[in-house]
């Protein structure tokens, strides 16, 4: 297991470097100068040149890239063009909200997706078809629209939860939990549908396997057969696709957060892209990449725990 973790860690480093290089290169390719975005329509050529010089934008690409990489390795992601604050501080302010939202969505997707998938596999026929219908709906409904409907019904009409969703966990855990219910459901519903379908397929395959018949024949209780053996084996492909689910959740969270006024990374990224605040864009993408790669690492370890063949490979 130690070898697996070390191997995955070593693989993660070039991945991060590649992502950073790609983002840096793409921001370099974007036409127009950030100085023009900062100074607006009334900027003179002299003031534009001055701001470009102040921001180091008049330096050669390679020099800027090396400087940024060197600083990033020490945890310094630079200063925002728009307010001169450290990018790492801006990201640190937003990251807890995004993690709350993505975490909530992932938990909802995992719990409800697995539950529905297992139920569908165990009860072929009408229940299976009904769950299939629900998951089709779940995959088809856009998170944004579903979020609006949830907000309208449960926050506006029924008043069960606040419309303004987010309270930091450290400030008030109960309010944090209450606030994150609807956003998590809105974000996690399509992912739950995806997980349910994967679980159903894997579970049905597991339940048809000869060892299940053997276990049943020797008198192992049905619940134990389902949970201890069939479900454990069915979880291997589900877990393997969780990395993809997470990436989808992070992307969708940027949309869902606007519906529930969750102050996450999405708004920061959007404003930074529009305002050509490249240090923030580069820093935010790097942090998201670290998150995805980190979670994939954890999943790989989990995959290894579930499947001994992976450990030996």
């Amino acid at each position, binding site marked *: 297991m130690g070898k697996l973790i070390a191997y995955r860690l070593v693989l993660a480093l070039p991945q991060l470097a590649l992502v950073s290089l790609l983002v840096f290169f793409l921001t370099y390719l974007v036409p127009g100068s950030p100085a023009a975005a900062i100074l*607006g329509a009334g900027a003179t050529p002299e003031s534009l040149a001055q701001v470009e010089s102040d921001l180091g934008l008049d330096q050669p690409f390679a020099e800027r890239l090396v400087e940024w990489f060197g600083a990033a390795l020490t945890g310094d992601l630079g200063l925002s063009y728009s307010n001169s604050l450290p990018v790492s501080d801006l990201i640190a302010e937003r990251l807890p909200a995004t993690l709350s939202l993505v975490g909530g969505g992932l938990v909802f997707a995992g719990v409800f997706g697995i539950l529905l998938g297992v139920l569908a596999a165990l009860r072929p026929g009408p229940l299976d078809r009904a769950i299939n219908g629900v998951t089709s709906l779940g995959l088809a409904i856009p998170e944004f629209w579903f979020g609006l409907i949830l907000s309208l019904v449960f926050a506006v009409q029924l008043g069960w939860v606040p419309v303004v969703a987010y309270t930091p966990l450290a400030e008030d855990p109960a309010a944090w939990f209450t606030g994150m219910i609807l956003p998590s459901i809105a974000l996690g519903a399509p992912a739950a549908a995806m997980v349910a379908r994967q679980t159903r397929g894997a579970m049905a395959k597991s339940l048809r396997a000869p060892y299940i018949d053997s276990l049943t024949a020797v008198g192992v209780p049905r619940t134990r057969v389902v949970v201890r053996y069939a479900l454990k084996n069915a979880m291997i492909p589900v877990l393997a696709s969780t990395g993809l689910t997470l990436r989808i959740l992070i992307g969708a969270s940027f949309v869902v957060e606007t519906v529930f006024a969750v102050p996450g990374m999405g708004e920061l990224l959007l404003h930074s892209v529009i305002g050509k605040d490249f240090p923030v864009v580069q820093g935010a993408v790097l942090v998201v990449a670290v998150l995805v790669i980190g979670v994939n690492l954890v999943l790989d370890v989990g995959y290894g725990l579930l499947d001994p063949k992976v450990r030996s490979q």
Partner: protein
Amino acid sequence: MRSSKNSTKPKALALASVAAVMVLAGCSGNAASQDKSTSGTLAANWGGFPESWAPGAEMEAGYMRVPYENLVALNGQGEIIPVLATKWEQTDKALTLTLREGVTFHDGTPFDAEAVKVNLESIRDGKTAYAGPLKVIESVDAVDAHTVRLNLSEPTPSLLTQLSTRGAPMGSPKAIKAGTIAQTPVGTGPWAYDAKSSTKGTRMTFTYYDGYWDGADSVGFQTVELYAIPEDNAATGALATGEISLTDTETTQFGRIESNASLKHLSYPAIRNNPMFFDRGEGGAFEDVRVRQAACYALNTEEIAKLEPDFKVRSQHFSEGEPGYNPDVTGYTHDLAKAKALMAEAGDPEVEVEMLAAPFNEKQMQVYAEQLGKIGIKVSVQPAAPPQYFSQWNSGRYGLGLGSNDELTPYDWYQAWFAEEAPGNPAHVESAELKKAADAAIAAGASDEADALWQDVTKIISDEALTCAHVAGEELIAWNTKVVTDVKPSTQPWETNAIDYKALRPAGE
């Protein structure tokens, strides 16, 4: 039937359990909102927060005018009125301001000439869009504690107006020097930022500042909370539940607002836009005034105004009562025959131009292209992402542009777009007649005859068809009458999200 019954079971069970959690945990949200309406708290939503609260940073009025005040303001008639400066005297070379005594910033720092110097120098030397108009201030002298003199590089009749805008609020010099003001606003306004009661990214709380120079009776609310709900449907929902008291909104929300007896809305003109003929240089597509005039007659402003529910047709940039407004300027009423005649008179030149468009204005540009196409002017609309659009639309690479001209005075408007060296005049051409009229108006400084001279300038700009087809978008504000009354726009014109905060009163008082 059986299958249908069975299929709903798990779903119902799931919803019931979610609902149960919501019932148990959701009560606190409602209680909080009820407290607000009885505790003198105004909860305003403008859809986000400024990236920086430093004076001179891009800050919409809805945020800026809670903790900050300006040296002067504009009243509803376009006249300068005192705020932190009580008197002023302007010459071609200097603007001398007498400052209000007994004013302190929220951190206890006295508001004096030195504070004004720090603020104006910080804005002028900053990397923001508001630095440009203050570049005319060569130096700032603190004559005494309550008198400050701004030494000017050239006559600048619009400087007082500029000092009234959101580009020139007064912040604590201590906080500016410490570099903390970007995240922690410290002004002289009625409400001081309360970091402890705020939640970063969600809610910023401002409580009444006991040392406020105008006294507690000048305001209605003890506390102002600013929220960042970017989505209009969610904001309307929060308004209906009383979670927020006031919000900016869109016409798409009017149905929900008007169906709720507690909610009201108002609108006022806030955003102007008009096409700009950039390619006016020698051999340029719009060099010939007849081609520009033909284009103006071909543009059907009535049709353009239908693009957005809140667009209104205007004859010129300035409104009646504003400096520069000329009643003789009637605009170019759509007349295709006249447009074609002018093109024929110009020799039916082949005119092909490109126009850069962003997602938020591409539709309007496509209408321009279609209408101009009827007189043979070919406009190719090039879609671009906002970052590219903002940095290139007026760079001179594109012959035609759609300007959002926010200048408040004819001096600023002329200097920004039409003077030979104006940043918005990439061809750097100016007619002798316009230059002569503008020079005369500038020389008249702030004298009584200046306004008539600026009216001449705006007439020439219209006659030369340097721009036309003016429309203005409205800012829409909605509020919950159970929480707040006396909602009216600020007297400061052409500001988005602007509300007269000091006039607001809690409902039932």
